[in-house]
């Protein structure tokens, strides 16, 4: 999921999965096949450790050098009733020897730890795919719980798949019998057995996982060794048992990546690092005021670890206090941030309006999730765009920046900080659950290539009064940016008062004058409209496309993958992806008018297309999905083809 624009030389993302390239050497009597890409989905109970298993496989895959993209998918309940459909947690990983853009539409391999996991996921699994099931769980009660009258392993309903029945629980307990653990304790390592098996199947390195387990259970060396043993037993099982006749190689994606040092990174981690980097580059202390909320809490957790960077994290009594404290810190000269999700934004709205009126820099990070109300806390959606754009009383414009991939959250955070600091304004950073929890390889930037975000605090008078005396006017603006001076407490001679009541232009004193209010409203709007954002670069290889697809935020991966499929099928299509939603890039209107047809796929009911239609009077066609899941490239490709040929 590197952020490259596709070129004709590249293969489409629609290549047949599992395509055999060169039969490998069947060393040790087993066949090794080469694949260009694989999609694996681990599925089990919420308590089965599927997210951890997925994370470990991802780390191994990243360090091996494949390109990858992940999709964790879990219920909001911490431990839903065991063995039920609502309790199923899964982790999908797509890895390849080339540049890929999405976690993949459908898994080639499903690991189902119990009947519920099989039932919840089988619908997504294409015929011919491999399914590894934990047969120990396919007993009467667990099957009855999810409505299997007969065992799907025996009634022929899985005939179209390549099923590997493995008694994962029994094998794990057997492997750990010398540890003297209770059955229940031993059973817990079955996810590591499964991980070992899959690691063997796909030739993953294992040192990282063993190191990880020993560090994670450093205080319980017995448990650490039990997990390592289960992991190795899984590996050995794959190598020795006849049921697994073939293992697979997916070569490192050397050509997909520019030269550099890489790591795997999730969106929330990249965003956290972006904030720390912005603080460093601005030479301002970072202050986070936040209240825990899914899927944003990881940023609070992460930043709390970095106090040695001068980062202050304040877990507030509520969402309002979170942003309030951040705003107070901004007044004092910190790089201030509040992190939340949609319901939290609703509570923060009044304070965001205050920040608009005070014209202080403030980052509002919204990790969007399914709505309305509590909605789908652990699922993704892009339905807060209009809330960010308009969700305040009065005319209260706020710039909006949206990252497009997990790793891009780093750059987007720096960009949002640039706008906030330069223009003295609150800025929305709109990520979402898919970006937050998904991960991909990231080329680690050199610190000296990061942007310089340093600001000048006001240090002296900026205005001469009629009688010749010098004064400080808190609302006297920079002519180019329209930003007002940032004079922080502690600066002698610049004592001033600011507030949410309308203020007189220049002096900042309370003013109810009609003409002044009209002027101030228009000036605040003009400041946001005038923010410098780069022009859009259109990806239109042929230059002859008549259809343009416009996206924003996390749909970048699926849309770009769909565009590659469409082009692979010989069609022409142009693509733009918006990072800046407010203000829009200057050339957006001109770009939109260049094409006969404009398609706007979004994970909402058409919020960007509403904005585009209103602002540019173009006949934008909205394609929407609000399932809590990202678009599938194949389906999106069909939509685009239909539009092209309409």
């Amino acid at each position, binding site marked *: 999921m590197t952020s490259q624009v596709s070129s004709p030389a590249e293969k489409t993302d629609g290549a047949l999965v599992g395509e055999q390239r060169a039969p490998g050497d069947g060393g040790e009597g087993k066949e090794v096949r080469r694949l260009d890409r694989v999609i694996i989905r681990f599925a089990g109970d919420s308590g089965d450790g599927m997210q951890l298993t997925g994370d470990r496989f991802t780390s191994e895959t990243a360090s091996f050098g494949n390109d990858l993209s992940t999709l964790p998918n879990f219920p909001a309940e911490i431990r839903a009733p065991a063995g039920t459909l609502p309790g199923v947690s899964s982790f999908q990983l797509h890895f390849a020897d080339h540049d890929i853009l999405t976690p993949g539409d459908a898994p080639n391999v499903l690991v189902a730890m119990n009947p519920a996991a099989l039932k919840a996921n089988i619908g997504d699994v294409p015929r011919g795919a491999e399914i590894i099931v934990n047969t120990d769980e396919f007993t009467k009660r667990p099957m009855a719980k999810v409505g299997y009258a007969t065992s799907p392993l025996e009634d022929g309903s899985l005939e179209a798949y390549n099923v590997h029945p493995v008694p994962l629980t029994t094998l794990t307990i057997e492997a750990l019998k010398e540890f003297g653990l209770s059955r229940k304790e031993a059973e817990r390592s079955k996810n590591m057995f499964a991980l070992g098996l899959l690691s063997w199947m796909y030739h993953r390195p294992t040192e990282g996982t063993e190191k990880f387990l020993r560090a994670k259970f450093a205080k319980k060396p017995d448990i650490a060794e039990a997990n390592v043993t289960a992991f190795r037993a899984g590996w050995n099982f794959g190598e020795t048992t006849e049921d697994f006749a073939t293992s697979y190689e997916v070569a490192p994606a050397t050509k997909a990546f520019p030269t550099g040092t890489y790591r795997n990174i999730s969106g929330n981690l990249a965003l956290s690092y972006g904030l720390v980097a912005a603080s460093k580059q601005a030479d301002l202390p970072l202050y986070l005021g936040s209240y825990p909320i899914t899927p944003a809490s990881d940023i609070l957790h992460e930043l709390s670890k970095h106090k040695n960077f001068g980062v202050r994290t304040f877990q507030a009594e509520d969402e309002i206090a979170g942003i309030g*404290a*951040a705003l107070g810190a901004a007044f004092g000269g910190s790089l201030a941030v509040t992190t939340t999700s949609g319901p939290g934004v609703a509570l923060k709205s009044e304070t965001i309006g205050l920040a608009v009126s005070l014209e202080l820099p403030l980052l509002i990070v919204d990790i969007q999730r399914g709505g309305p109300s509590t909605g789908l806390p652990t699922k993704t959606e892009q339905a807060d765009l209009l809330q960010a754009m308009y969700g305040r009383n009065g005319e209260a414009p706020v710039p909006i920046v949206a990252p497009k991939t997990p790793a891009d959250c780093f750059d987007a955070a720096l960009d949002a900080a640039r706008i906030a600091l330069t223009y003295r304004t609150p800025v929305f950073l709109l990520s979402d659950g898919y970006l937050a929890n998904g991960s991909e390889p990231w080329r680690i930037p050199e610190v000296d290539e990061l942007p310089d975000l340093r600001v000048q605090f006001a240090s002296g008078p900026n205005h001469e009064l009629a009688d010749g005396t010098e004064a400080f006017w808190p609302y006297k603006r920079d002519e180019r940016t329209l930003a007002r001076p940032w004079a922080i407490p502690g600066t002698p001679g610049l004592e001033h008062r600011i*507030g949410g009541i309308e203020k007189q232009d220049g002096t900042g004193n309370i003013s109810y004058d009609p003409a002044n209010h009209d002027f101030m409203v228009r000036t605040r709007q003009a400041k946001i409209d005038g923010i410098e954002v780069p022009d859009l670069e259109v990806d239109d290889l042929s230059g002859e496309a008549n259809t343009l697809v416009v996206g924003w935020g996390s749909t970048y991966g699926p849309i770009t993958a769909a565009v590659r499929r469409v082009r692979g099928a010989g069609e022409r299509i142009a693509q733009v992806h918006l990072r800046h939603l407010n203000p829009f890039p200057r050339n957006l209107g001109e770009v939109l008018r260049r094409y006969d047809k404009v398609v706007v796929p979004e994970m909402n009911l058409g919020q960007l297309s509403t904005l585009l239609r209103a602002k540019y009077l173009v006949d934008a066609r909205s394609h929407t999905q609000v399932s809590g899941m990202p678009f599938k490239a194949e389906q999106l490709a069909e939509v685009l083809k239909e539009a092209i040929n309409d």
Partner: protein
Amino acid sequence: MTETIPEEKPAQIEALSLVPKAEAKQSMKDFKSDQEVRWCPGCGDYAVLAAVQGFMPELGLAKENIVFVSGIGCSSRFPYYMNTYGMHSIHGRAPAIATGLASSRRDLSVWVVTGDGDALSIGGNHLIHALRRNVNLKILLFNNRIYGLTKGQYSPTSELGKITKSTPMGSLDAPFNPVSLALGAEASFVARTVDSDRKHLTSVLRAAAAHPGTALVEIYQNCNIFNDGAFEVLKDKDQALEAVIRLEHGEPIRFGAPAPDGLGSKGVVRDPATGDLKVIDVLEEGTDGVLVHDAHAASPTTAFALSRLADPETLHRTPIGVLRNVERPVYDTLMSDQLDSAVEQKGKGDLAALLAGNDTWTVVG
């Protein structure tokens, strides 16, 4: 029954040790902004403003390091009239905003100005959490027992059954006692004073300013338009004898018409039967059991019991003065200490090392 009460500490302003001092001597005028004061003529807020402006020079702090943060309401216009840094924020949120400022800037003296509606109704949550955290804030709660700026609805401190525009048949909700509430919220400093008693008001401000941590000062303030005379019983010299219990650290808690010893003829004692406080006539029962006020008592129970002596209807037996003044760890100091110990433990943050993490691979072109 005798109690030994520790001496009042010398007025060492420990809370403000990190705030730079003024270079020259200041006067009240230095703290007046150029803005015209727009409260109603006769409003109690004028007296409080004058008292604060008059008291500030005594602190001797660089005025650029003083910040007043307010919410919404009549009293919340206060910052505009102070020639310091100031923010007139939104309804109820001043303690949260001030928390962010104070916890990120320990070189500032941060004051919150709020009212009974602002602090106890819409902003109640922020108030109790600021108190429990013990952030270095001085909160001046102007209590006029009415909503003034919205023109006269009952407030969370209005007496039960109050007839107002929104309660023509009388209010139905029991009032908060702000002092009791603050004590229940783990406040380390709680005081009450009255707008018209400048000397008392100033003495309370002095104690609040010296307190490291959150100081809550409830100021009974007259709204002469919508709730005139609400505190008359505390201000009228004759009635005040019975109505006001003046608390002084280390002094016996006596009030009422003077007894031959010059102190009040009534005393506050602990009722051995219930453990609660009660009022006795010292002329009849003697002074032996009369409590000596200990603002520094580790337990807040006596302070709480004192706060409950006041009758919410008549305001009789209203204690004023510093009810509680104890030291406990201050939030912003703790926060800052954590930053220091993180640097000690891990070294100063290295951005390149952070970004790289522990698990990287290299692609060579």
